[in-house]
Structure formats: C-alpha cells, structure tokens
C-alpha cells in the first residue's frame, strides 16, 4: 500500500481497482442469483408452478457435495457430479410424486406447497447434518493479481461455471430433440400432448434440470458463503427478485436480472450506509415494477375474452 501511495496516479488507480474488484464480485454473486432464477423460470415456463424450494435444493446440493468431498474423501469433481445426479433425480421424483398432483390448482396454493417442501428440506438437513457451518474445500482457492485487481479464483470459477452451464443449456434446448420438445411443452401443454410428446416425463425432466442448476449454483457458491442449512433461503429470495426483475418467464431476463441484483447489492454495500446492502436490490425492484410491471424482458398480456 505504501509503495502505491507514492504512485502519482495511485488514488484514482486504486479507486478503479476497487471498482473493478466490486464489479467482479458482484458479477459472480449475480451469476449465482441468475442460476437460481434460471431454475425458477425453467419450471415456471413449463408448468406454471413457482418453486420456492429452489433455494433449498441448492442447499441440499451443497451438502451432498460436502459429504462427498469431506466425509467420503472423493475427488471434488466426482462429488460434484454425484450431487448433480442425486439432487436432479430428487427433483424429478418430487415432480412425479408431489407437484404433478397440484397442477391446475391456484398458483398461490402451489407457491405455499413449495414453501412447505422447502421447510421440510431444511428440517431434514438440520436433522441429518446438524446446524453447524461447514467449509467446502475446492480446487479454486488461489488468486491472480492483474494491475492491482485481485481476481479470486472462487469468483472466477462462478462466472466461468455459469457461462458454461448456460452454453450447455442453450445447446440442449435448441439442438436436441428433447430440448425442443420441452420448448414446445412450455408453449402449449395440450398441443404438445396431442403431438405425442410425453408431457409428464418432460415436466419431470425440467424439474431435474432445474434442480441440477440449483446444485451447480450451490456448489459454486459454497466457498463464498460457506455451507449451512439456511444458505438457500437468502439466495432464493434475491434470485426470486432477479427473476421478476428480468420478467418472470424470460430466460435471458433471469440471468440479466440476477447480474443486476448482484451488482446493485455489492455497489450498495460498498458505497451506501449500512443496511442498504440487503435492501437496495428490493428498492430497485420496486421502482422498476412501478415503471414496468411486467419486468425487463416480460410482456404484458391481458386475458382474452
């Protein structure tokens, strides 16, 4: 620090470095929100259910990975993979056993159902793993310093992981038969059914994908927030705000919304008085909804009569 203070352009340089640092961190946190929001939107687009247990699936994914890495001493990637498979299967099972039965009930009832499921998952986690806070060792512990900006590998891994996952999902939805079938089902369930698409199976698959996305988000997030039973709740609330900000039902909207929320949160935390870190995203959301009630990428529709 002392050496830099003598640097003639040190002050602005350091400010810029701090700004870039914040932006990277905000981007990384935003990516997590974006991923969880993506999970919300995938399920919503297909089945019109809003899954409030998304954050708790994230928490379960992080715990399963933790168990793999620490208790069974598996390789990080193997444990990661196992967690994705296990929690995705659990998501599909959840759809097949519980959520399929409430399709057609008022949206509000379904929201409450998933809130109830989330509470059960948290209780399950607290009975199984206890209420301690755990650390997940990851291969991304180092830092790279470029021009005074410290790039933490944890944060870089989040951004890279998000980009990778989005690429894979994009390819899946546009280039595979089953992905296109999913899109068709989201557009019109009944028509898809008549075209011979196995709608129930598609719904379960979408739940699996959505749960898998949550696991990726959870494992990427784990080194930043540490693992505990309530880690999903706070993330899910912000991610929900992100999904709405983007216009619920729009996939690019979810990601953009997530990044916006993440950036606002970090900038507000650094510049505004204490307390604004957690409220600023919501204030922005309320202002945005007042101006554009349908969200950034949403379309306003009115029932046809």
């Amino acid at each position, binding site marked *: 620090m002392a050496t830099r203070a003598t640097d003639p352009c040190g002050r602005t340089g350091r400010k810029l470095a701090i700004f870039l640092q914040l932006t990277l961190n905000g981007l990384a946190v935003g990516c997590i929100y974006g991923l969880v929001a993506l999970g919300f939107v995938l399920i919503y687009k297909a089945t019109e259910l809003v899954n409030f247990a998304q954050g708790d699936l994230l928490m379960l994914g992080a715990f399963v990975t933790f168990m793999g890495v620490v208790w069974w001493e598996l390789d990080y990637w193997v444990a990661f993979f196992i967690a994705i498979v296990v929690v995705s299967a659990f998501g599909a099972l959840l759809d097949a056993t*519980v959520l399929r039965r409430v399709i057609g*009930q008022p949206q509000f009832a379904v929201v409450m159902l998933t809130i109830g499921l989330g*509470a*059960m998952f948290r209780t399950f986690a607290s*009975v199984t793993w206890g209420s301690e806070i755990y650390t997940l060792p990851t291969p991304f512990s180092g830092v790279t310093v470029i021009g005074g900006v410290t790039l933490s590998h944890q944060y870089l891994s989040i951004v890279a992981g998000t980009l990778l996952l989005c690429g894979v999902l994009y390819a899946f939805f546009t280039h595979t038969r089953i992905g296109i079938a999913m899109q068709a089902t989201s557009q019109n*369930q009944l028509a898809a059914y008549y075209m011979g698409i196995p709608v129930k199976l598609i719904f379960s698959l979408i739940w699996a994908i959505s749960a898998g996305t949550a696991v990726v988000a959870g494992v990427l997030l784990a080194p930043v927030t540490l693992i505990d*039973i309530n880690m999903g709740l706070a993330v899910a609330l912000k991610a929900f705000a992100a999904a709405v900000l983007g216009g619920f039902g729009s996939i690019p909207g979810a990601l953009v919304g997530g990044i916006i929320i993440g950036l606002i949160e970090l900038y507000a935390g650094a510049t505004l008085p204490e307390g604004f870190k957690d409220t600023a995203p919501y204030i922005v959301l*309320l202002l945005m909804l007042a101006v554009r009630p349908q969200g950034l990428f949403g379309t306003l529709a009115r*029932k*046809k009569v």
Partner: protein
Amino acid sequence: MRFLFKTSYAQDIQLFRDRVDAGWYGLLAVVVLLLPAVISDYYVGEVAWVFIYAICGVSLMVLVGYTGLISLGHAAFLGIGAYAHAYFLQHGMPWVVSVVLAIVITTACGIIVGLPALRMTGIYLAIATLAFSVIIQEVFSRWESVTHGFAGMPVGKPVIFGLSFDSDLAFYYLCLFFLVITLWLTRNLLRAPTGRAWVAIRDSEIAAQSMGVNLAIYKSMAFAYSAALMGLAGALFAHKIAYLAPDIFTILLSIQLLLLVIVGGLGSLHGAIFGAIFVALLPPVIAILRDSIPASLADATAATGIGLFGLIGEGIGSFLRKPGVEAGIFGLILVLVILLEPRGMYGRWLKTRIFFSTFPMYKRATFKRQKTYMKSERLR
C-alpha cells in the same frame, strides 16, 4: 337433515342463518367466555394468542381468500402496528388513541403498498409485498430513535380508561372482544356489495370490471382494510409479546400467516379461526408431545416388558427436540393439506357435517373436484 323455509329476502342477509345457527354460536360464545375458568393460566395465555392470530387470519383472508391478492409481506403490517402502538404508548398517549393511530398508520401503509398492486397480480404482487416487508424490517432495525433497533422495545400492559389489563385473564377478554368486533365488521362487509366486489375481482377481473366494479378502488380497499386489521392485531401482539425486536417481523412470520389461512381453509371466515387455532396451538402441542410420548412409551415398556416401545419413544423424543423440527412439521402439514384437502380444515368440517346430516346418503362425489388440465394464470 334440517330444511330451511325462507319467507323473506332479508333472511338471506342475516348475520346468522336461522335461530338454530344463532343458538350454536351463542353456545360457542358461552364456552369461550367460561373457558378461562377451567383451563390453567398458561393456557389462558395461549388461547389469547389464538385470538390475536385469528385477527391476523381474518385480515389475510380478506386479501388472499376473498380478493385473491397474494401478500408475502403481512408481517410488516403487523410490525408497523406493533411499533406504532408501542411508540405512542411510550409517549404517553391514552391506549385507545394509540391503537387508533396505529391502525391509521398501517392503513396508510396498506394503501401505499396497494397502489402498485393495482397493476400486478400473482407472483409480481408476491415479490412486491416481499420487497416491501424486507425494506420495512430494515427500517425497524435502523430507525433507532423510534424502534430502538436491536436493543428492543419494551411494551407495558394495556391500561384502558384507567382499567389495567395486566392479568392473563383480563388480556384474554380484551383480545376476545377485539376478535368479535373484527369478525362482525368483516362479516358485514362480506355480505354487502363491497364483499361481493372483492369476490368478483378474485374470480374474474374482467367480468367484475364490466359489471361496474372499479378495480383500482376495490383492490386498494382490500389492502387498506386488511392492513387496518393487521394494525389492530399488531397493537395486541405488542402487549402479548411484551418486547419488540426487528427480527420478529420476518418473512417467516408472513409465511406462517399464509399457512394459517391455507390450513384453515381459503375463502371463509371460519377458516381464519380454525387456522389460528392450529398455528397458535401447534407449538405447545409439540412441546407436550416431546415429553409425553417418550414417557408414555417408556411406561408401555415397563408394563409389557417389550423394550422396542421405549426405544421408539426415545427416538421420537430426540427427533422432536432437534432444532428446526417445528418448522419442518409445519411444512409437512402444509404440504399434506394442499395435496389432500385444498379447502383446509373448514372444508373438512363441512364434509363431516354434511356426512352426518345426510347419513346414510352421503355421496363422496358431492365434493369431488373436477379434473382439469393446466389452466393458465399468466393471463388473468
């Protein structure tokens, strides 16, 4: 089965359906009035919680059950009512004035929150109310000159016109009084054009509009009325809990209130009461089971000599003692109710009653829900 012969239109808008109905409610009133004489002081206090939760339940029932607007932020209204009342009391206002001011303030907040609600439905409204509640909670913890932040704010016992309600018994009757008033006023609104307009908005906004309902006015009215009741409940809540802190009024409390209306049965005032009984009494019931199940099963072991009973008892006891189990039990019940009895406890009550009044002619199909394919709520 009893058949009701109606002879005038006025009969359909009475408070009670007929004399027999009124008689049952009269009996209920007597039971509730005499209840403190037979239960211990501890339970008198717990039943007072039921009354406070029931006022909250009626408030949310008007908004969610009758008008079809979702609020994930009702705990914030409760908090505003509680803090406002505590603040005014601290500044020496008479009790009645303080409560009225608390209600006025929450009503104003309700209208402010209701304004954006005019253009939103479903999830958008849910998130907007959630955002409001997060912001309000932050205000509670930061506005220290009024709320004392995390240091907390003590609230004394109510003193009304010189009468002190410092015993559990007196407070019981105070809460009961306000619950009855709440129920009466709400029932009046619901049997009048305003209540019909709310139901109409819930079922079809577009038709309601074409029949002359001003959506903006009636939606804000629902929000304002609901918030006003929350303000009243908040004032009683403040006395009951005796010490206000910002982390009481979280989203978890809002969710618990929503759970109340769903478990009770959406779209009926009875449901609000049933739900309040459930939400307020489940924690003490779990507390009792925590100790009594292991004890009674241990007795069974002692009596029969089969060690398994005792082991099961120990297992259940230690499970119930784990932290966070209560929330899980609430979650489980919520899931079961939505899956098995979407009309809640009140729906179950109606079915039971009809089963007995039509015995042995009861048909299960009477309440069978139509199977439907997914109906879009995107375009409401």
